[in-house]
């Protein structure tokens, strides 16, 4: 089968779901169910963000204040309490972007190797990669701290990037393995026989077909990296601190200031919310293409 024919069948697959799902969205009952679920899903997020714009007193009142004049005083206090906050934001962005790029490249390479080459013990290798996910954070925290101290990686962005890659490789490799296994070998074979060099084959045939899967996996990795807390908190202080790790600073004082806490939380989650809004589509499309078969 040729490359273009394969692409056509992929597109056709997306159309057929009516038969399988057997329901149409406009059904009244399902609509109500969806709305209820949507409210449950959105409300905590909404509440945190809204609380960020209230004053200290308003945020505590029961019954809650629904209509109020939004103020930025909580945000101002966030920056007062944490002079580092701006730097944390840039750190989060830099660390996440680089970690995701590296994880995706290294992980996809490994996945390709496992999918296409009959390596001895490839099953064990892929299980080993999965097993890096098994250990609880507490098992890692102290040894990592020790290693990082010895190599001078404490409070460095490089250190965090390494930790993020370690955490996310398992998921990336497993997802991408499924993606590559779905792409018919015959396509690559045909091109190779025509005399194209191996890397050219990958670049012009495999990667474009795998792209939705790569994008989806990268999106997952981005979310995981941005939200990573345990290592970010343990292994950094000031220079390389990321946003989630800065949160404990707002967690205790004479009085828990929910407004400030919500403001800080809002600043941490809003970039991801915006990100999600734009990429949600690619997530599903990428996962569909066999990534989930494992």
């Amino acid at each position, binding site marked *: 089968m040729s490359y273009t024919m394969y692409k056509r*069948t992929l597109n056709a697959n*997306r159309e057929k779901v*009516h038969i*399988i*799902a*057997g*329901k149409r*969205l406009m059904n009244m009952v399902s609509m109500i169910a*969806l709305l209820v679920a*949507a409210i449950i899903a959105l409300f905590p*997020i909404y*509440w945190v963000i809204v609380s960020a714009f209230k004053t200290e007193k308003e945020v505590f009142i*029961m019954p809650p204040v629904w209509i109020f004049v939004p103020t930025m005083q909580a945000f101002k206090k966030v920056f007062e309490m944490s002079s580092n906050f701006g730097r944390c934001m840039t750190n989060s962005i830099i660390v996440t972007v680089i970690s995701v790029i590296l994880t995706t490249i*290294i992980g996809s*390479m*490994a996945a390709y*190797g496992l999918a296409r*080459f*009959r*390596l001895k013990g490839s099953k064990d290798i892929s*299980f080993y*990669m*999965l*097993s*890096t*996910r*098994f*250990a*609880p954070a*507490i*098992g*890692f925290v*102290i*040894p*990592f701290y020790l*290693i990082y101290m010895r190599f001078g990686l404490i409070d460095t962005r490089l250190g965090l990037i390494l*930790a993020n890659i*370690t955490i996310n*490789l398992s998921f990336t490799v497993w997802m991408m393995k499924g993606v590559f296994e779905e792409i018919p*070998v015959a396509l690559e*074979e045909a091109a190779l026989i025509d005399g194209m060099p*191996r890397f050219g084959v990958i670049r012009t045939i495999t990667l474009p077909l795998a792209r939705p899967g790569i994008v989806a996996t990268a999106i997952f990795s981005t*979310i995981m990296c941005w939200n990573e*807390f345990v290592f970010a908190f343990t292994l950094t202080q000031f220079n390389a601190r990321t946003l989630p790790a800065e*949160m404990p600073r707002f967690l205790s004082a004479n009085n828990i200031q*929910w407004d400030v806490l*919500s403001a800080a939380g809002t600043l*941490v*989650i809003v970039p*991801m*919310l915006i990100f*999600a809004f734009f990429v*949600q*589509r690619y*997530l*599903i499309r990428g996962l*569909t293409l*066999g990534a*989930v078969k*494992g």
Partner: protein
Amino acid sequence: MKITKHLFPKWHLKDKYLGVLYVLPAMFVLLGMTLYPFLYCINLSLQKWDLFQPNKRYYIGFTNYISLFIDPNFWNALKTTIIFTVVSVIVSFIIGLVLASLLAGKGRFVGAFRTIFVLPMIITPIVIGTGFKYLYDPTSGILNYVLSLIRITAPAWTTNPKTALLSVIMVDIWQWTPFMFLILIAGIQGLPKAPFEAAACDGASCWQILKNVTFPLMKPVVLIALLFRAIDSFRTFDTIYAITSGGPGMLTTTLNLFAYIKAFKMYRMGEAAAVAIIIWTIVFIFSQLLLKYLSTQKVVQGK
């Protein structure tokens, strides 16, 4: 039609060693970063090391493990963790399945709803933890206020012994149903057309189609989703710690929190390492079993 057979064609044999090259960077990173901590942890679990006696650090073999096995708190934590994981995974699976089946197709609002249902997974866990702690608060939290409007006197969710575990499970479900939802949608969309057409031709009812066609075909997808979710749920820490700190009493103390308490509150590092190794072992055994089951499923499906 999807090609699901997996071939190792002849020309690849020559490049047997090229494959190693592809896998090398990933293995290098993983081995380098995880081997030492893992060995360190095992090593530590065989020692007695109480932080307040830095000079008395010595090997005691398996004593840490033995003292854990006779500690009722340990078994309590294990039970709590299992309940937490099982309930969270199953309920989020069911909800995710219902939502996925409603939103797998096309429709006017499908895109909007999909975006909405993806969001809880994206929020930073520590923000969720503190946010829900605020929501659950009996005096200034909005959940009990809303319930009081419809005349239900709600309990103090996170501190009432009867509802504490439930309250943290609910948070975990809220947070991770999107994950199930996404994978299940992808799974549904990836199903081949032919069996369904055949079943429709044979005049099978909706329920029969569901039972005999959809479920078996979805099994590999479902199992992978369950595997990842179960592994992660078993190791949950941030949200539980933020909401209840393992209390009241030890009612919401999962194994992970138990290890944390041993290390950072009781200063018994050796025992904490032992708990960590036990967690690791349980997850290891569980995944092995699940994956073996998965590969037999692949054979049955005629791959």
